[in-house]
């Protein structure tokens, strides 16, 4: 059974933000909701690295565990999805998420949170695949169309990889061997409790 993962090769990432706008484009994500973002560490200094980050679809996902209403579920591909019908916008998943993935539209007067929105690994939500309802709540369901997440597909330098964890780990490993350096599979230890030995 495939285990879907993201891997951002920081030695390739140039903070071009293609992943960010590809996500906006594919899912018509509104202003203020950032399902994916690129963070630059040591900005402007030698050693600077940028990392594209979204929901990592963790193993034993903390969001799923802390959700008071159990709105999360993990698919057979190990993609962590949620139901906006169940979500109450409590914000607990945001406290628990190691990657800052959950996003909340601001509703009401005092910054209170609407229903949580996050990266779906382009796999939609609980509604029937590729229906209008699913699209409006969660965006496109590319996985059901046999496609991978658009962010990774459009990555300018093939830095962001998405797909079967074993395959992308192998690709990363080969890259590091070939070029002789690698700053690590960012987030893997935290998300998957594993690192890629290189």
């Amino acid at each position, binding site marked *: 059974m*495939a285990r879907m993962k993201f891997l951002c090769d920081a030695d*390739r990432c*140039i*903070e*071009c*933000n*293609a992943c*960010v*706008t*590809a996500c*906006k*484009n*594919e899912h018509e994500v509104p*202003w203020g909701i950032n399902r994916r973002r690129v963070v630059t560490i040591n*900005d*402007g*200094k*030698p050693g*600077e690295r*940028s990392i594209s980050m979204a929901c990592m679809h963790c193993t034993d996902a903390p969001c799923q565990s802390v959700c008071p209403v159990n709105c999360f*579920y993990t*698919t*057979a*591909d190990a993609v962590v999805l949620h*139901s906006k*019908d169940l979500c109450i916008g409590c914000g607990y998943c945001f406290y628990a998420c190691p990657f800052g993935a959950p996003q909340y539209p601001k509703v009401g007067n005092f910054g209170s949170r609407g229903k949580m929105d996050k990266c779906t690994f382009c796999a939609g939500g*609980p*509604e*029937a*695949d*590729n229906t*209008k309802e699913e*699209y*409006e709540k969660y965006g*496109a369901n590319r*996985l*059901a*169309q*046999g*496609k*991978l997440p*658009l962010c*990774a*597909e*459009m*990555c*300018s*330098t*093939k830095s962001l*990889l998405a*797909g*079967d964890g*074993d*395959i992308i780990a*192998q*690709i990363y490993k*080969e890259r590091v061997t*070939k*070029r*002789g350096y690698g700053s690590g599979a960012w987030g893997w230890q935290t998300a998957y409790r594993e690192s890629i030995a290189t």
Partner: protein
Amino acid sequence: MLIKRTERQARRGSLASAVANTSGGGFDRRTFLRRSGLAAGGLAALGALPLSSVRKAEAGAPPAKGAAVTIRKNICTHCSVGCTVIGEVQNGVWTGQEPGWDSPISRGSHCAKGAATRELVHGDRRLRYPMKLVNGQWTRISWEVAINEIGDKLADIRAKSGADSVYWLGSAKFTNEGAYLNRKFAAFWGTNNSDHQARICHSTTVAGVANTWGYGAMTNSYNDIRNAKTMIIMGGNPAEAHPVSLQHVLEGKEMKRANMIVIDPRMTRTAAHATEYVRIRSGTDIPVIWGMLHHIFKNGWEDKQFIEQRVYGMDDIRKEVEKWTPEEVERVTGVPGAQLERVAKMFATEKPATLIWCMGATQHTVGTANVRAFCIALLATGNVGAPGTGANIFRGHTNVQGATDLGLDIVTLPLYYGLVEGAWRHWSRVWEVPYDWFVERFDKSTAADGKVTNTMNTPGIPSTRWFDATLYDKKDVSQKDNIKAMMVFGHGGNTVTRMPQAQKGVEKLELLVVADPHPTTWAALAPERKNNTYLLPIATSYETNGSRTASNRAIQWGEQIVKPIFESKDDNEVMYLLAKKLGFADQMFKNIKVENNLPVVEDVLREINRGGWSTGYCGQSPERLKKHMANQKDFDMVTQKANSGPAKGDYYGLPWPCWGTPEFNHPGTPLLYNTNLSIKEGGGTFRARFGLEREETLPDGTKRKVSLLGNGYYSKDSEIKDGYPEFTLGVLKKLGWDKDLTAAELAVINKVNPTTPDAVSWSIDLSGGIQRVAIEHGCIPYGNGKARANAFGLPDAIPVHREPIYTPRPDLVAKYPTLPNRREFRMPNIGFDVQKSAVDKGIAKQFPIILTSGRLVEYEGGGEETRSNKWLAELQQDMFIEINPIDAAERGIKDGAWVWVTGAELDSKARMKALVTERVGKGVSWCPFHFAGWFQGVDQRPNYPKGTDPIVLGESVNGLTTYGFDPVTGMQEPKATLCQIRAA
């Protein structure tokens, strides 16, 4: 709610079962790698990996609409890499964007702009209909009224002030056909005041490189950088300006463990991935290159055979370089000798090596000389004309290469024929319009001595100085009258330095027409302007058909994805309508079919083919280009050659020169000057463009003649085993090859020049016969010459260092002054006076911080289009200035705080946010150049027509930039000026 629950459980079940059912039919490894765009990445040993098990798609059914999906292929409009855009269209609406995996250039990738490009055609902030400014109010008008009123006003101005009073500012966003029509339009109108963005980005590159070895374009390609062992990126930040190019750069770097050296005043995002970063002072490129050559010559690392056979004048360079000792280089540039020696050694000895540059090199008063120095470094180390080498010049817009080629320029007709009589006669023959008709269309100017010249042969006014030509005293402008009308097609108003002057210029114009998808800065800059301003809504490139030339000279055909939205029309239609109104449509479109006011673009391209011999734009017929787009998958990613399929043997996009007629089936030239291939397969030699020999005066006063032709080198399969001049019928006759010409070809040649057919050359032979015969004999039509290290004829034949006009080192001005004042391009250039006065006034003390500028990945050019794109605008919401932590601390400036930046000229000032970072060194600041809509502290949002204001506005850096022009091209100097910063 309870129903939902049922649904949800069903859904969970269905997913699991679906996965189970397709365990054999999901993604196999191959499909996965392809969909990840990694298939060609050299990842072989993955056989034992478990298969992914995503369900197989039936069809990419996008959200819910259920309508049939049409796939259309176009080219991203945001830089010159040429990424393929795949649009999914339903019921005429662009509903989805998919990666273009098959493109050998982009392999599915995009940057932020490309991945958000669909929004342009949703057009939340686009102009919807033609508008006119009536007493300061934007008023809707019809296309008919717009064309009529504009046409009448143009005719008035022409009658009163002459044809040269109207400036036709075109665009690098045009398709090739649009660019060609725009230049042709200016010719039919009767002026050479026709320019576009190349003036302000790579005009100096084109001039400098062409003057070195023949053609002023990228010699190799983005893909070919993969072959380099050493790459120097100098004055460019492709990680932000050309992100997809970094795919080739970084993969090449990884595969070959190549040296990647970034030389820049700013530690850019590109530098973050380099193996060596060299920080230099802005505007000292020549000393840095000379410093490298100093080490190279001293240690004998130069390629002596290459220089001997293929380069003219390298000894003159040696003399100049001797002066640049490591100590002097460090004093002027700040680069330590040891570091430069290391870089020089890598560049000269770890070959192949390539030099990549961009606007950091070109936008200086010494732009042309900078570029010349870069070429000389490549020549000295023998790094031209082979895979992994070359001058890899990254151009800026989708089709800035094509628009340059097609002569949207003040110094030439299409395809670099120049403005001489022969050029006009050539195009007259192609257009089938009498030469004398054009002579009549142009103004005649009378010099003080009474000599009358026809302005058809004199270069026009560069776009960097249109407002000077508007504001200067009439007698200072060498044409009948000042510039009275600006016809702006697809060009931002904030891209030229000295915007306070531009604002005055806009106020003074008698007519301003902005033909653009957006109103642009032109519409908002000068609120004092109340009338005689028209906005014409133009379709984007996605709403039109046509070809585009990427930076690597490859031409790609773009399909219209959707019809022009709102009331937009494409450029070609507007030009036709204007030509019709002005009365020359019949002549201009004589050989171009027009359907419903739309010129048929295939016909336009065929006309280009019929006249484009000089640059090898003759073989790329629309049919061949469409075949390439349909069979992208057949082309190899590194070599760009199709190894199978209908286009087998061709190089992707038939990179120019693609010799002969389309039927001749030349494969295109992926690498210029590559002697390892025969000409027929895309090889070449340096162009014999600068004469056969040159008379030199030796130190003892004696004179000798030195050959400028290749010395004992030639391309593969050449029947002439040495240098040779360009081909004419006469040359063919001497060689006895004229009998290979067909009767039909000979007839055409005789028709071109009935009196002296022997003088008909390869570039004006409309039959293509001379080219064909030369190539059949393994020879390149333009001759086999030497590249010039000494480019006699240029103001600085040997590049010498000259301090920027506004230099932070006034102490160096005495030794390295800018060129003396002079007249060029119909205007005075008083750079010398300005530099002297800045030194005398102690400007460097009052404005102690160097100001330089560059690109952000999210925005492009003047930024009106991209700042109107909600997916991009969200990512960069404020204009900012990067400032070093030490400078910030001295001024009490905090990261993210508002600051006032004041410029060294015109009492200019701008309010923006501070970004405190070590990316810039102490005493240096950097601004992105995409912002506009605030001016000198004033928010100009109300000046835009309602609903068309870009989402993000900000101060333009060009509100602060200063005087200074390259003597060869009129290039501005925004990359090295001075400013002061204080907390707001």
